[in-house]
């Protein structure tokens, strides 16, 4: 990565780790946006050439065919983008046998806004890159669904034909899941996890930078899919095969976009795992780790083990489309619901991927804001592990009515209901932490309590849906839409806002506006419940989901829901105004505005370039609030004997 040091050895500044812009024609070969301008078309040309060559050699006609070329371009163009940006420079140098050079840190940290648009190895910069990207796609995904809600305000067709409506719905769900919730936790984790465990950076900083840059690629492909000739991706975020294989070209964009997002997510998770296993500060045993670190650890295990299954499912769809294989085509020996099994074997664990880090954030905030030790610390960590294991055994509850083997229903129902136990342990532990605490209702705390409220509603409807008889009745209705938004919006998004407000002073060094933060919470909380609670009723009354038109008798409630959803959308403007204004004009926050014990709060805000001036030494639990003299970490202590991997 440190090509600055090699190609411009005369630059004295490079040794001090400062970014020196190259001059003259060097600007075109130096990693950056100018190099993208020619590397990306080059890779695109190579892609088209390869497809043409293979089709010519194999004597397949027509030699130029839209679907294979699109598929390959959606792979090679992003690779060209990454190569141009410099994502592969280090590994290309390393593997071509050039001598590796010491890291001069010229790619570490941000000195101007431009540094956020480069390959940057600083986990704090990458965290901010993630969060800003997520914010952009949160707005995009929100806009899409507001358009769809406008269509749904009245029965009949107003603005969009059903095909376009399906594309809006599909892209809304896909963006919100793969570009907002999953990576937002990666972003928050990127910023705080190395600080929390007392490490200078992630274990693989260059991989970290690369895995971030896969994300905008995925987002751009998913958004671009809306505008391709023939129509956008319209088979739902689940993109069931063989249905989606007979749909317009936009589905190819979904197919490839999800692959990029998945690759990004696996690489980040791997990085988190290695960082947490190998880079903890002296004294930081596994039972002294903050619960967010525990949560990220289990989530990353889920990502590393489950995400390959969605990659597999999308590979099959790609092969079916490009090479006309018959993995799922019943007429040719394929198994029709095979895709669903493989997809949900990822996508049910993915629900926990989208929740466990949120649980970790809530544990941090609830304990700090109640000024009490977290209740049942070890059980909180163990229940995460229980969810990790059980999460792999419940996938088929998405398929009770899909025509799968009948004997599978009851075992899956049992495991599904069983997984409520570790989740219940967590909810009751938070409540017990709140009990008789000195509760400070700051903005993060409001989000945390709002999360517990909404998540319990979503969890309870989840238990109903886990029972086969109710699922058979309520599946494919708006009841499902209500349930999924209570767990993913009232659950995950609330925890993301909670974490965002909580660590905002650490990230920017400035405090957000408390009144605007609370206003944002109340507007979102009320708007959210007004939007989604009536959907329970709509569903039980028999309104099917995934429809652009519906029976007249649902008209009144749908109009109400649409108006509420616009209110919910507008509440985001308060948030945007608050963070943009506070980023520059907020009052300085100081090191530790929450009087928290965690390591990340003992360093400057924002943290120094390399996090720590002195090595942190962990001496106790991270949650001993209200215990006189309790310390979690001390700095500059003499070195004790090294701690092994924590067993």
């Amino acid at each position, binding site marked *: 990565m440190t090509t600055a040091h090699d190609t411009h050895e005369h630059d004295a500044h490079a040794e001090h780790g400062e970014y020196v812009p190259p001059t003259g024609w060097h600007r075109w070969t130096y990693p950056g946006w100018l190099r993208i301008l020619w590397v990306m078309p080059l890779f695109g040309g190579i892609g088209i050439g390869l497809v043409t060559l293979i089709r010519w050699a194999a004597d397949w006609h027509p030699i130029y065919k839209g679907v294979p070329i699109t598929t390959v371009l959606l792979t090679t163009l992003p690779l060209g983008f990454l190569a141009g940006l410099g994502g592969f420079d280090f590994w290309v140098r390393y*593997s071509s046998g050039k001598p590796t050079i010491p890291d001069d840190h010229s790619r570490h940290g941000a000195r101007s806004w431009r540094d956020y648009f480069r390959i940057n190895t600083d986990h704090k910069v990458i965290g901010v890159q993630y969060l800003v990207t997520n914010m952009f796609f949160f707005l995009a995904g929100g806009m899409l669904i507001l358009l769809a809600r406008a269509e749904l305000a009245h029965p009949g067709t107003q603005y969009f034909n059903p095909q376009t409506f399906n594309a809006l719905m599909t892209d809304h769900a896909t963006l919100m899941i793969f570009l907002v919730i999953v990576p937002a936790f990666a972003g928050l984790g990127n910023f705080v996890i190395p600080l929390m465990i007392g490490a200078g950076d992630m274990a693989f900083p260059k991989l970290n930078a690369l895995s971030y840059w896969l994300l905008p690629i995925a987002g751009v492909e998913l958004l671009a899919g809306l505008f391709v000739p023939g129509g956008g991706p319209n088979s739902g975020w689940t993109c069931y095969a063989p249905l989606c294989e007979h749909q317009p070209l936009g589905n190819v964009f979904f197919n490839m976009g999800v692959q990029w997002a998945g690759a990004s997510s696996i690489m980040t998770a791997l990085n988190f795992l290695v960082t947490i296993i190998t880079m903890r500060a002296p004294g930081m045993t596994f039972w002294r780790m903050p619960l967010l670190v525990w949560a990220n650890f289990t989530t990353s295990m889920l990502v590393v083990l489950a995400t390959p299954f969605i990659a597999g499912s999308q590979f099959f769809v790609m092969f079916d489309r490009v090479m006309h294989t018959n993995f799922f085509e019943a007429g040719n020996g394929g198994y029709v619901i095979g895709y669903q099994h493989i997809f949900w074997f990822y996508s049910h664990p993915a629900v926990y991927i989208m929740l466990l880090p949120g649980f970790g954030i809530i544990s941090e905030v609830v304990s700090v804001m109640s000024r009490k030790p977290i209740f049942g610390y070890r059980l909180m960590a163990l229940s995460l592990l229980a969810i990790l294991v059980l999460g792999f055994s419940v996938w088929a509850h998405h398929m009770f009515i899909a025509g799968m083997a009948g004997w599978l229903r009851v075992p899956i129902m049992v495991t599904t209901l069983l997984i409520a136990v570790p989740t219940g342990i967590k909810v009751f532990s938070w409540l017990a932490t709140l009990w008789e605490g000195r509760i400070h209702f700051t903005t993060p705390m409001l989000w945390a309590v709002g999360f517990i409220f909404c998540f319990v509603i979503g969890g309870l409807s989840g238990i109903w849906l886990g029972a086969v008889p109710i699922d058979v009745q309520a599946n494919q209705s708006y009841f499902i839409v209500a349930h999924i938004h209570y767990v993913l919006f009232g659950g995950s998004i609330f925890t993301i806002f909670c974490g965002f407000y909580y660590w905002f002073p650490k990230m920017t060094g400035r405090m957000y506006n408390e009144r605007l933060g609370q206003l944002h919470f109340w507007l979102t909380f009320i708007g959210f419940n007004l939007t989604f609670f009536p959907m329970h009723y709509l569903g039980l009354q028999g309104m099917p989901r995934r429809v652009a038109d519906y029976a007249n008798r649902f008209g009144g409630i749908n109009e109400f829901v649409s108006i509420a959803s616009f209110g919910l959308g507008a509440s985001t403007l308060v948030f945007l105004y608050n963070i943009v204004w506070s980023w520059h004009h907020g009052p300085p926050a100081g090191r530790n505005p929450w009087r928290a014990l965690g390591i990340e709060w003992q360093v400057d805000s924002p943290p120094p370039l390399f996090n720590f001036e002195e090595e942190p030494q962990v001496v106790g639990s991270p949650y001993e609030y209200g215990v006189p003299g309790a310390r979690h970490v001390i700095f500059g202590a003499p070195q004790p004997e090294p701690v092994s991997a924590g067993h």
Partner: protein
Amino acid sequence: MSAHAEAHGHGRPGYDHPLPIHFSSRISPVIVGIFLFIGSEIMLFGSFFTVYFFDRVVNHTHPWPPHPYVRPVFVAGVNTLILVTSSFTMHWATVSIKRGNRAGLQAGMVLTFLLGLTFLLTQVIEYHRIGFNTSDTSFAATFFGLTGLHGCHVFVGLTILLAMTIRSFRGHFSPEHHHGIEVGGIYWHFVDVMWIIVYVTVYLL
């Protein structure tokens, strides 16, 4: 890396240069990383085995392979022996550099690369002469799916091996620093073991 930063000898630690890294595990991060990555890879293969299981067992496809397709069991068996041999030569290369034997490292790397390349070329020729195409029933889909996925891994493995071979001829690696060989070797062994499972499933069963 940190040694380089220390060499500056000025400025505040944490602001101008990082502190030396404290490792909480005896195993190096790179090795932990490659094993986790292999876990991920096993799951990717798992999804392909799952679809194979669905198309063959759950779907009650009899006979397997469907008439009139024939699997080249013998050629693939010889190919299996070639790939298994390459695991031993890889091991030889790794042991050699640990003992500081550069000639052994170089010979081991070259042999491993050539054996792997032979395997891949045999596979390509086999595809060419096999008598069915990707679009022929789900049997062909799972056959090309599993062997093709494995072939891609052989290709990636060969790319790594080639790079490491070049580096071993440029005098890199020492008994103390040979992560490149070690990681490439672990990956290559994984590719080999996975082939044995693929061979048994796709060709023999």
